[in-house]
């Protein structure tokens, strides 16, 4: 099984004890096939990054895993652990609840507030507990959503671009937070991202979704702390960018 962080050991999707099992998953929206007979397995504490073009069906896949959209046309078998947690592509805070209440929404019992406050402090929003969601900046909203998903201890974390609206520094801090969570509770993670560097830096395994199927499924094997300038890092990066249709030439401004 993969241990994280650092991608020390690894197994592929056919490994033992997968917590996510998807077989023959299809999703169609009005005739357009978005997911096409897709298979996927994620191991017990595996960290999987999902890349793909805009509109390729990443969110659709995540939503299917989260058990949403039961009415959408399509079929397939999906097994996920009971205790999973979702970060939506939009922050999706309840506008009528203050920030803290949003964070502890799924939590009950004593200590909930305390845990909520801790998570908020970790995402850099100490002191904003009583703000309304619409008083937050875009990145702050996204961090509240992150805090909300981390406050419970999920066995599976489904995260749809949770860092999209964050600046470089905050993003790095949030990476650290996520890694810390993984270290402590060892959840399986499926992280949708557009940032190939982020995928390579964080994940045990990177998938690329294209035309409704997983076209690339590559384990990331990097020794020790992952250096962006490590040649293997750059190699993975190049390879994945190519899979997404970006040639290195295009990565420049002509």
């Amino acid at each position, binding site marked *: 099984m993969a241990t994280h962080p650092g991608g020390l050991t690894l197994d592929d999707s056919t490994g033992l004890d997968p917590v996510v099992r998807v077989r023959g998953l299809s999703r169609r929206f009005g005739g357009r096939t978005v997911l096409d007979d897709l298979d996927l397995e994620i191991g017990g504490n595996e960290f999987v990054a999902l890349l793909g073009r805009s509109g390729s069906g990443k969110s659709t896949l995540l939503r299917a895993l989260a058990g949403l959209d039961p009415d959408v046309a399509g079929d397939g078998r999906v097994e996920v652990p009971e205790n999973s947690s979702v970060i939506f592509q939009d922050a*999706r805070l309840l506008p009528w609840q203050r920030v803290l209440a949003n964070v502890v929404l799924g939590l009950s019992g004593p200590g909930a507030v305390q845990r909520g406050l801790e998570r908020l402090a970790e995402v850099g929003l100490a002191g904003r507990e009583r703000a309304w969601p619409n008083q937050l900046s875009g990145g702050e909203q996204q961090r509240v959503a992150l805090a909300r998903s981390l406050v419970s201890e999920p066995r599976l974390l489904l995260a749809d671009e949770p860092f999209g609206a964050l600046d470089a520094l905050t993003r790095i801090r949030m990476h650290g937070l996520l890694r810390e969570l993984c270290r402590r509770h060892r959840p399986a993670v499926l992280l949708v991202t557009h940032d190939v560097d982020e995928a390579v830096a964080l994940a045990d395994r990177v998938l690329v979704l294209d035309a409704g199927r997983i076209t690339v499924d590559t384990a990331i094997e990097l020794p020790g702390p992952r250096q962006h300038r490590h040649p293997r890092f750059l190699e993975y990066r190049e390879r994945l960018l190519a899979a997404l249709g970006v040639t290195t030439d295009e990565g420049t401004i002509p």
Partner: protein
Amino acid sequence: MPFGSALGPLLLLAVWSLGSLTGVLDERTLSAPWTVVTTSGDLIASGRLQESLLVSTQRAGLGLALGVLIGTVLALTAGLSRWGEAVIDGPVQIKRAIPALALLPLLILWLGIDEQMKIVTITLGVFVPVYIHTHNGLRTIDQRYVELAEALRLGPGRFVRRVVLPGALPGFLLGLRFAVVSAWLSLVVVEQINSTSGIGYMMELARQYGQTDIIIVGLVLYGILGLLSDGAVRLVQRRALSWRRTLAD
């Protein structure tokens, strides 16, 4: 805006005063504002106005409380369960389509002519707008928040308390604006029956005796009560929905 929401009513008053002064509005059919003031003074001096108001307020208040409760519970039941919807919604729509005046004989039949019947009639008038608005508010909660609740596996209790109720609150409060006014209006109907007190009775009596000035006092009273109750609900609305940022802000 210097006077704000008082401007419209003040303008109305001005037109009325002017019309009365110039004789365009016939004193015999629409008493002048000052006549209304002196008549109110007389009614207050004799204790009739306060007494009527007190009795009516109790009736309306009790009916309102019951109606709001019932309307909310029914709306939640119908809005959250398919069976509830199927069983409750149709009959409520039918109830709402049936004229209160025509329903009264049946209510008298089942409940007699005492206080009970009056409260029930007010309640029946009140629960309908509360039900419809709360139900509508609830059914139109953004699917995204419902998904969030599912994803967080919120229990039904928490789902109702954190998502459904606050989400339906704007609808509920709009319904309440209708409910408070409806409670006052119901008095006109119920206090025609076996009453010896209340503003509805006072007006009915004045109509029978052709006391135009008292009728107009009653109308003004209704207007004021309506404005005040509606204003109170709007105040609550502003407070309770302070998280919203809308065109009105």
